């Protein structure tokens, strides 16, 4: 069965790009527009989450923290999207429990290599 990945981003274009890339590679994709939306949609089989950090309502860091303290999805890989200028954010995200990161701007092959690395 194909694995399900949730992409969380308030930018529809980024969501679309991540989603297209992953679907082309044979993954199921769930899209969420921000952290709160992600938490609402988080049910059933979700194998991995790719989330932006800067988002309204519940931001990426908060989302990671909430997932890590939940029971169902505690150990799934979570990848955060960061930018070069956001090293502090990256550290904060790691502390919250992110499994890895992708530095923006990124190209589709980069997403796939990180997904394949973490989703074994």
């Amino acid at each position: 069965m194909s694995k399900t990945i949730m992409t969380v981003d308030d930018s529809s274009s980024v969501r679309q790009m991540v989603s297209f890339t992953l679907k082309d590679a044979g993954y199921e994709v769930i899209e969420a527009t921000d952290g709160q939306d992600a938490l609402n949609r988080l049910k059933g089989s979700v194998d991995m989450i790719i989330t932006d950090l800067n988002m309204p309502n519940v931001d990426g860091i908060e989302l990671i923290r909430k997932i890590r303290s939940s029971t169902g999805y505690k150990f799934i890989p979570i990848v955060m999207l960061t930018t070069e200028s956001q090293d502090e954010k990256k550290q904060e995200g790691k502390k919250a429990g992110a499994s890895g990161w992708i530095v923006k701007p990124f190209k589709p092959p980069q997403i796939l290599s990180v997904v394949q690395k973490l989703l074994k």
Partner: protein
Amino acid sequence: MSRKDQMQQAFLEEAGDLLPELESALLELDERPEDSELINRVFRALHTIKGSGSMFGFEAVAEFTHTVETVFDQVRNGEVPVSKELLDLTFRAKDEIQALLAEPGGQASEAMAAIAAELRQMIPAAEASPSSGHSGRQASQGSGDENVYRIRFKPDTNILATGTNPLALLDELRELGRAHVIAHAEDIPNLQELDPEQCHYWWDVILTTDQGKNSIRDVFIFVEDDSELSIELLEEGVAGGDGSEGYKRLGEILTERGDVDPQELQAALDSQKRLGELLVQAGLVSETQVRSALAEQEAVREVREKRSVDPAESSVRVPAAKLDDLVNLVGELVIAQARLSQTVGGLADQELRGIAEEIERLSDELRDSTLGIRMLPIGSSFGKFRRVVRDLSRQKQKDIELITEGADTELDKTVIERLNDPLVHLLRNSIDHGIESPEERAAQGKPEQGRIVFSARHSGGNVLITISDDGRGIDPETIRSKAIEKELLSPEADPSEKELINYIFEPGFSTSKEISDISGRGVGMDVVKQNISALRGSVEVESEKGSGSSVKVTLPLTLAIIEGLQVRVDEEHYIIPLPAVNECIELNGQEAGTHGGRLVRLRDQLVPYIKLRDWFCLEGEKPEIEQVVIVSVEDKLVGLVVDEVIGQQQTVIKNLGRVYKDVRGVSGATIKGDGSIALILDVDPLVREVSAHEAAVSSTAKTAQRAETV
């Protein structure tokens, strides 16, 4: 519309929403410059335009927006105030972005450059440099030459809480090349203190790969900051010495890694056992650490050997692991073939039967030649033995000559490897306890030079190894008093001399009066016996006081496949190793018990028997006529009573696993032709176990009662 156009279109639509949002947030910020939520809104809008812009080919937009975003990042952090000037610049920047997006492929205008320059003035110095927009490391290309790396990976105990599976990382390493992974379990706390969501394992990996160090580092890219990670290049594929010179010694590797102190090492080196064992015993390093260092030695040696192989040579070097795989496969084949024969045997099809027989013949040959590949001459160990004798005799100031015979006797590689320690121990015993000092020998009229003969030869399906010396021998009386003192023997008992001597194999039995640093370390003959039994061999001692002793070790040729006799008791099947079996006779229901106990008549003698049905507590009705398999145990005959003798069978030995390692009388299991399992009986311990049990029962119960149970 291509997918790229589709994505660009999506971005333009999104930007069309974001820019008005940016404008309204800026307008509100003009009124409430302290509102942090407003600052965040501005930042997020800029951030998205920048991030998405560069992904969808709007490089100019992205680069320009980056500068604006950087300023607002500082604003967010409270380092740059929200000033009228800043807002003006940002409004203008927003207009420029809008204009730039409207014209496809547009380049940055002069106005934009000016705005960017002014904005940069506002940023504290260090932050001003533009983003490089580059991520990830350059993976170095495989050079084609293989290098050996030592990788020590000690993840943070909370690694699992970050959704990272450390085993997946190890798998990734395996994808890079040949990896030997040693898991360290030393840090795992006791069960009570163990938090199952934490990872206490750490790993040493010896990796032979043609990839560069960066490719290895990339595997750990997400965890390296929080883990202890070291990657060291041990051996380069190109330059360096040839295979003849050895790699670093175990001690050097351990000190280099900081696992052991040089002084501690030196102290340990002064004694004579194998270094690894010694260090473990002394508690300086753990067994895992030693194993890991040995793996490193092995990997480097392999690479060096590979380099030094002459392609024109008539022999081929193959890693032992490949041979093991092959032996496993042949084992599976033998099982499948047995199944085929069994199935075909029930059919009338002559042609099919012919084919099955052909396959049986081929698989037998394949098995023999495969096991033959693993055979090594025992002479390969002789050099080591000479060294032991030379060093120890010098240390003990004794004059000893070692004579070796049968160097070309072949044994399974695994047997030879695992035999090394027990044999060295036996040699040490001879040197330490057996051979007397030259003065003593001269006084007894013996030649001053002592002599140890080490011989190996084939004997049936077994290999017989004898270590004999012309020393003082073993005094049965010393053994007797010692055995009584240790409460192994009751003072009234009257065992034969031979039985007495074999008490030296009892745990904790050491006749040496003083404990020397060579033998008498507490690891005594019982360990030797255990090791040899583990190889399904046996050991016995003969000795004559004053003229020397001789230790005889009997070993099977191979550990993987044996000939066995399959028998059935009730629904259970058992395999009795064929070399132990003498013959099979019938046990008639009426005749049983007529000889005053569990005895059966075999021609002109009475043979005691064991009922497997009773011993293994099997229920069910026994047949009218039972079968007795007569086996020889230590020169005595014993009968094993079973329901049915099925026949001779190739038996592929499978280990029962550690849980069953203390079960006596069963040495393993095998998979039968029909897929079910049969236990392999270990005849010697089984008989001993039963007779010990009987002895215990008979000492408490009356003889009459025992007769009844028969």
